[in-house]
């Protein structure tokens, strides 16, 4: 599913106009532990986390993730956004807590037969 559609359906706030929302999201992974994401997230996944510091972009690049959703209305640090634009990792924010947004996202991705 195109990130564009996920952004619309889940009413995510896209943190920069520079992001390319035309990427295809194949799967999702939720975790706030960077090592866990590094060990277990799959390529082209969207990552749900509450972390906002710039190392999340490094992890996303390393794992070739398709984007990051930050939960609980937390705003990414300015440096994080700068790096996200540089590395072309779309960063979105939702006011919802992790449980809610993951549930919705799961329904959205899995209902269409995307599997991990």
């Amino acid at each position, binding site marked *: 599913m195109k990130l564009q559609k996920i952004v619309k359906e889940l009413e995510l706030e896209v943190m920069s106009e520079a992001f390319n929302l035309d990427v295809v999201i194949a799967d999702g992974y939720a975790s706030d532990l960077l090592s866990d994401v590094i*060990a277990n997230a799959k390529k082209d996944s969207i990552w749900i986390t509450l972390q906002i510091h710039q190392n999340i972009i490094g992890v996303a690049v*390393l794992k070739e993730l398709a984007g990051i959703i930050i939960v609980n209305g937390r705003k990414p640090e300015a440096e994080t956004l700068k790096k996200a634009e540089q590395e072309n990792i779309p960063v979105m924010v939702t006011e919802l807590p992790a449980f809610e947004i993951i549930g919705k996202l799961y329904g959205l991705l899995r209902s269409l037969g995307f599997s991990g």
Partner: protein
Amino acid sequence: MSKKITKVQELIYKLKIEQAMTKGVIKVHPKNVMGELREILKNNRISGIPVVDEDKLVGIVSIEDFIKCMADGKIDAFIEDRMTKDVEILYADEPLIHAVNKFNKFGFGRFPVIERGNRKLVGIITKSDIIKTLLKELEINLQEEEIHRYRASHIFEDMIANKTTLIFEYNVASQDFKRAGESASELKKSLGRLGINPQIIRRVAIATYEAEMNMVIFTSGGRITAYIKPDEIRVKAIDSGPGIPDIKQAMQPGFSTAPPMVQEWGFGAGMGLPNIKKCADKMNINSIVGKGTKLEIVIYTQSKNETPKDS
């Protein structure tokens, strides 16, 4: 929305109309009669013909004009009396994007291409000409990229020596969380340029990232060195202290001595060393308290045992 420029977008600005147009155009003279069009249109399977007098474009006559003429029963009419005189044209030296825009604006099937200044007809361009040209250009670009990749990935074969090793070295500063991870990501990019298997690169990058993080969080800084050989990649992470008192304990998943602040950032989950071990074909760690830690991992690039431990 997206500011990223695709290769196709780049090409339609770069290429000129004369590179995409069809030359050797079928044309008619204004003093030909409409009836003569039947054979030309049929034999060439075209839907419109430029009308040319002494090399100069004076109009265009289409299949619609021909049908109307038939309906009116005037197949003996001169073409100059039934053609479209006010023709939308393109110049040979314009970029292809102008053609794309004109197709969108007017919805015509073709545009005559003329030389700037003298209205000399030099070609005709259709949407399929544009598509064919773009596809051809993309193919050429792809081939060039493949050649480039081939060269990079065969760098070892081009070097004449009994043994060849490429060495990449990165300095890692203590507590520099802003730059943490940069060594791993730079190494990853460099390995990519060498054309190494992406699966292998990912394993090297993950192991290096974790080693780098450990260095940033726990040590007073150090150095990461990657030795690239034709059949293996060896990464050494050497720091200057404080050292690990109990390596066995440190290797246990979940064991961490990271301060709470660092853990809050999502680091120090006690998974660093286990992650490294998972990615490496060989791992060796030596530590002396008060002196420092030496971590060495080896990942075989020829994948002796095909173990995609990471996806």
